[in-house]
């Protein structure tokens, strides 16, 4: 984001002295939360997956950042 700042002493034409600032918004990391709603079902006696990957149940504001890719690790 660019911001122009002008300085004037009241006599000189406004904008006689202009300085441009480039302001960058720095991401502040947000806490992820896990809300695995509903039950996960596992077929007894059968090896295989249980439900959907838990990543789809994670809420994190950082996921909306356009220039920041969030990644998660899960532990049980």
């Amino acid at each position, binding site marked *: 984001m660019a911001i122009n700042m002008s300085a004037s002493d009241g006599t000189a034409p406004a904008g006689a002295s202009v300085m441009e600032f480039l302001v960058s918004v720095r991401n502040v990391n947000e806490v992820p939360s896990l809300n695995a709603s509903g039950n*996960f079902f*596992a077929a007894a*006696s*059968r090896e295989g997956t249980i439900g959907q990957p838990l*990543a789809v149940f*994670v809420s994190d504001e950082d996921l909306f950042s356009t220039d920041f890719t969030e*990644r998660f690790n899960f*532990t049980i």
Partner: protein
Amino acid sequence: MEQGTGQLFVTSTNAAKPAFAFSSSGNAGANEFDLVVRVSDRGGLSGDGNVRVQLTETNVAPAFTQATFTVGIDENAADAAVVGSIDATDINDGQTVSFSIAPTGASANAPFPFIVQSATGADVSAGADGTAVIRVASGSGGAGAGLLNFEGSTQSFEAVLTATDSHSTTPLSTTALLTIQVQEVAEAPYFDGDRRRPNSVRFDVTVEEGASAGTAVRMADAAEETTVGQGVAARLTATDDDVVDAGTVRYSVRAPTGAAPTS
């Protein structure tokens, strides 16, 4: 759990008996697992969530320890004699295993002298064994039936042994191929080879009083006499069915116990 995606898996180190077995006990929570999962982001922040995993019942067919079995039975074994016992397992809790047997192959269209029974009929719970006991069928045992005769035409029987679980709607089965071999048993020789009389212990013969030594003894039944030299004498022949004993039958004469010596 897969760290990057959070995918949960059912795993087992023992394929034959998975760690997860559905319980039919009816206890609340017996088939539920509550997990606390922690999710961590790249910046090291984390949050916890609760996940409840519910087990759903999956019927699995019983399993034999082998695909083929070979057992042996002595020839002329009696009715109900045990031929062998074969185990099957069923990992589903609360189910029982029943067995059936059917001749196959060369035995399919011949008399089949065996039956199968469950050992106890008891509940075969997860990981427990069910036992099939193969027995000689009623009326098929003994020498008289002639179905279990090593010297006969059939020395081996083939059958399909089936184990079936007791699932209420979709019972599952597993089969194994069973070979039953009739085993040789040494059998005593018997007299009267032409007309087998295993229980004949007495032959009626006649001899004239005062007969001199060397006089032929005559049989009461002329059909059981044979020509000896210029005369006729009793023919007492014995047969031994055992192949290994062929041609080795020997004869001797002795007085019955307590009788006067033979002269």
